[in-house]
């Protein structure tokens, strides 16, 4: 294992390359620009391609186009750019085009606080584009995890033919930390499902047993149609309910039936806990510290750290909450994850430790909430 000092954004860029990303399009924006700068240099070295587009709308469009051409593709941005990308994220969900969208969150709304961290886009990552659609959102909390989850984001995108959002924040994006990079042969790489049926049999949106239809790139002799309209199994626009309803059911099923593969989380000392802290992203670092301190003070506190935040791991949260009285949810927003936790834990008390002013939540603040009982 190679250990080195690495910045979070750089780990994301290197994770992308390790995952097989060979196309990246983006528009400069703090605190995500470093990802673009690393990939502008690194991608051509491995035969990949980088392009700086005219805006984030175009960046999102370009990675979809590249993915249709067969490349693993990614873009990276922050709040304002993420808002601009929403329509085309919906297109990727509708047309089932694998791609990875990195959002290095900064405090908002609007231009907000460009160099200060936030977790304010947690709900936007789920519901930002119009209409109902499934999506996968991962949120790392260390530089090492950024590398691993970037690889995972590509694997999930390719495996389930879906956009995957990697929700980082300015804190971990700009932070430098020692990381142990896995050797290339130890990194699991997933490729999208293909098929060898003759072109005339190929249906780009076929209802397959796995719910994920094989995807063939443009230019491979399998000519088909891709659209943002509701479409039939061959991709042609339809308004027939007997074609629309099965499509909706299938795209949700392909995520819901694979939660075991998609949901990533970590628990610590929840077995005997009376109180559990649930956190993700940079906030999880403070939460872990607070839980350790509280244990030293004799509180029976457990910790649940989420790496997958959408689909929301409601089974795990419900299970952890079953034996306890209180849940503490620290977040750099005014209570977005807390809404989901409240939905799942029933009448148990959910205590929010919230801040949306660009400041990190300190372990002390979480410890206070634990102590307040």
């Amino acid at each position: 294992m190679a250990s080195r000092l690495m910045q979070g954004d750089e780990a994301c860029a290197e994770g992308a390359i390790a995952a097989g990303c060979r196309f990246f399009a983006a528009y400069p924006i703090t605190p995500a620009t470093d990802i673009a700068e690393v990939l502008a240099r690194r991608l051509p070295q491995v035969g990949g391609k980088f392009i700086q587009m005219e805006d984030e709308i175009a960046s999102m469009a370009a990675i979809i186009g590249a993915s249709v051409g067969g490349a693993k593709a990614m873009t990276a941005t922050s709040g304002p750019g993420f808002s601009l990308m929403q329509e085309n994220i919906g297109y990727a969900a509708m047309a089932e085009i694998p791609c990875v969208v990195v959002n290095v969150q900064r405090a908002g709304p609007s231009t907000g606080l460009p160099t200060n961290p936030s977790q304010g886009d947690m709900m936007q990552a789920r519901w930002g584009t119009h209409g109902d659609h499934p999506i996968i959102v991962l949120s790392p909390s260390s530089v090492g995890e950024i590398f691993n989850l970037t690889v995972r984001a590509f694997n999930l995108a390719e495996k389930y033919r879906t956009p995957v959002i990697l929700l980082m924040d300015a804190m971990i994006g700009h932070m430098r930390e020692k990381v142990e990079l896995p050797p290339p042969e130890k990194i699991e790489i997933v490729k999208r499902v293909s098929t060898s049926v003759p072109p005339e049999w190929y249906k780009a949106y076929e209802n397959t047993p796995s719910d994920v239809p094989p995807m063939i790139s443009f230019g491979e002799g399998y000519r088909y149609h891709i659209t943002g309209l509701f479409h039939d199994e061959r991709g042609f626009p339809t308004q027939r309910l007997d074609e629309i309803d099965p499509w909706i059911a299938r795209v949700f099923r392909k995520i819901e039936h694979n939660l075991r593969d998609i949901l990533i989380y970590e628990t610590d000392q929840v077995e005997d806990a009376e109180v559990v802290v649930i956190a993700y992203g940079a906030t999880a670092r403070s939460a872990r510290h607070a839980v350790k301190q509280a244990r030293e003070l004799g509180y029976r506190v457990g910790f649940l750290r989420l790496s997958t935040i959408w689909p929301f791991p409601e089974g795990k949260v419900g299970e952890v909450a079953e034996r306890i009285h209180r849940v503490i949810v620290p977040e750099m927003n005014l209570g977005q994850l807390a809404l989901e936790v409240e939905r799942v834990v029933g009448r148990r008390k959910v205590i929010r430790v919230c801040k949306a002013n660009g400041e990190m939540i300190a372990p002390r603040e979480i410890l206070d909430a634990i102590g307040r009982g």
Partner: protein
Amino acid sequence: MVVKKQERESLVHERYLRHQKKFPHVWCAGCGIGIVMGAIVRAVDAVGLSNDEVAMISGIGCSGRMPVYVDFNTMHTTHGRALAFATGLKMVRPEMKVIVVMGDGDALAIGGNHFIHAARRNIGLTAIIINNSIYGMTGGQYSPTTPTHAYASTAPYGNIEQPFPICQLAEAAGAAFVARSTVYHARELSRFIAQAIQKEGFSVVEAVSYCHTTYGRINRLGSAVEMMRRLKDNGISQQAYDKLPEGEQSGKIVRGVLVDRDIPEYTQLYDQIIAQAQQTVAA
């Protein structure tokens, strides 16, 4: 084997259109978009391209529906963004001929930024802009090419904005090839499209069309036939246009290849970047 012209035409349709189940198309009877589609498939045939090596990408609007009918690799994207999607595809599949079909609102209003930047990069895409001076599909709102003073459903007192000169815009932004024809001059249009497809670099063909259903009705310009006749009468060459006295130039449509210049193409330049980067790593 000698194939009669008429038979050859039908072969072109057999070969390049998705004839099963996809017709009739969505366009109004008398619309010019079908003529542009015909011009494109004839151009593809004339250049001798196989269906597999062509991609057609569109945005939203009446023109956006064209890719459904042609048997290429086809993609109907979001409003105004077709060129950005096409840029990603062309980057990873530089060997493909990527034809981007847009309307005037699609290419120049919501997609105006992508249009000038695709031209500036000189990436090897063929942009075909079907200019009917109106938003047709949404019912006749004024577009970036609606003439000043013309009426539209959102310009009930007349349009106070200036129209974009598409070809000059493309030239100023850096396109390698720019041509204009009309849907009346269908053969010429097809020839220009064939030239555009073969050009290395960003090529633009403005296909001047009309919308008798919305624009024609609100501006009392008559039927599709009458609007077509106006294209015939007003579409003239650059030389003929230059000879006209100043007072008579207004309302004329200059047809012809307006720009044809050799500028390094983007994906080819990027290949050099890759070679350079790999050399650096090796050293």
